[in-house]
């Protein structure tokens, strides 16, 4: 008869070996997340430190409201923490993280926008502008010009369909690869390229004076 202890030993070793190989391939974040899985909460603190700002910035650009972006980011990190026990390093941590962030943002935009988002675009823009340029060293005229341009950019981004918007934000600001964006959006690489091309086409039409 097989000794359950001895028979369990190779599978545990195999798992550790597989995790180490995955960590080697997927990097520091996967290693930290494995530490969180094993009960080391300092790993979560380090992950939060590394990814807090990118996630909030992504969500801010998605929903165009800093307070809501922070609320959604809390939900994202809460979900990461809740899933720690079942985490498997099968993909890059950032891909997984942005998949959760995209899902949370799309849900909010689909469900919550009409009910919760009573703020007008102008209010949101003012909210953003106050936070963004506290001391830019520009004179009033330059500041107004800058604000006008920024307003155009935000409106152009907001006018994009939500999936195109998410794809552009992950591509431009988070510098994710096509395959990562595809995984985050749950579509193929070819679909991502098509989404991006259509999105940039719309942005060129709205923002570029050359188009």
């Amino acid at each position, binding site marked *: 008869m097989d000794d359950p202890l001895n028979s369990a030993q190779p599978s545990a070793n195999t798992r550790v070996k597989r995790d180490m190989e995955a960590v080697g391939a997927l990097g520091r974040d996967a290693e930290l997340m494995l530490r969180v899985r094993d009960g080391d909460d300092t790993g979560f603190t380090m992950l939060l430190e590394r990814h807090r700002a990118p996630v909030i910035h992504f969500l801010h650009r998605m929903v165009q409201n800093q307070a809501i972006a922070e609320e959604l980011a809390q939900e994202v990190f809460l979900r990461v923490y809740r899933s720690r026990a079942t985490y498997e390093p099968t993909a890059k941590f950032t891909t997984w993280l942005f998949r959760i962030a995209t899902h949370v943002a799309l849900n909010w935009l689909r469900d919550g926008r009409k009910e919760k988002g009573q703020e007008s675009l102008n209010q949101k823009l003012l909210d953003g502008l106050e936070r963004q340029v506290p001391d830019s060293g520009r004179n009033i005229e330059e500041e107004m010009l800058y604000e006008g341009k920024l307003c155009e950019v935000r409106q152009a981004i907001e006018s994009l369909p939500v999936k195109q918007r998410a794809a552009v934000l992950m591509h431009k600001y988070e510098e994710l690869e096509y395959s990562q964006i595809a995984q985050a959006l749950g579509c193929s690489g070819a679909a991502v390229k098509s989404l991006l091309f259509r999105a940039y086409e719309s942005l*060129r039409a709205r923002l570029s004076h050359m188009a």
Partner: protein
Amino acid sequence: MICPILTKESAEILVDYCAGTLDPGRAAEFEKHSEECADCRRLIEAQREVWERLGGWKPGAVSPDFDSRLYARIAQEEAAPRWSQWRRFLQPAAPYSIWKPVLPLAAACAVLAIGFLIRMPNSRDGAKQVSAENVDIEQVEKTLEDLDMLTPLTVPPARPM
């Protein structure tokens, strides 16, 4: 090089070139092509302008209490009784606004299904009915005649002289 505007590759080449992520060999080839192609040059200029303008959008600073709020939520969740943690699994996966329009349709389907089950005739009775309907009267008469033919002819007893 075939003009990328005319091919399906244009999206990738143009976007990657302006983002600076196109591999050096293809970038050089594309640059060479764009020197001769006015359409590509225009597209590159437009895409670069968009790229730069998007780059000007700097997001705001994160609230200093973000981490403390998050850890408070985690602690609250950890402290909650185990049964209450299951509540989130019972919440619908899709938002209410998505499944709300489906509700009347689902209710109508349920009523139809129940009605159909109640009114559905018993299959056994149906089979009997079908077999009874298939009996042909002519066939019955013929069978009775056959039976008559089979009955042995009885010779009447002879009268005593």
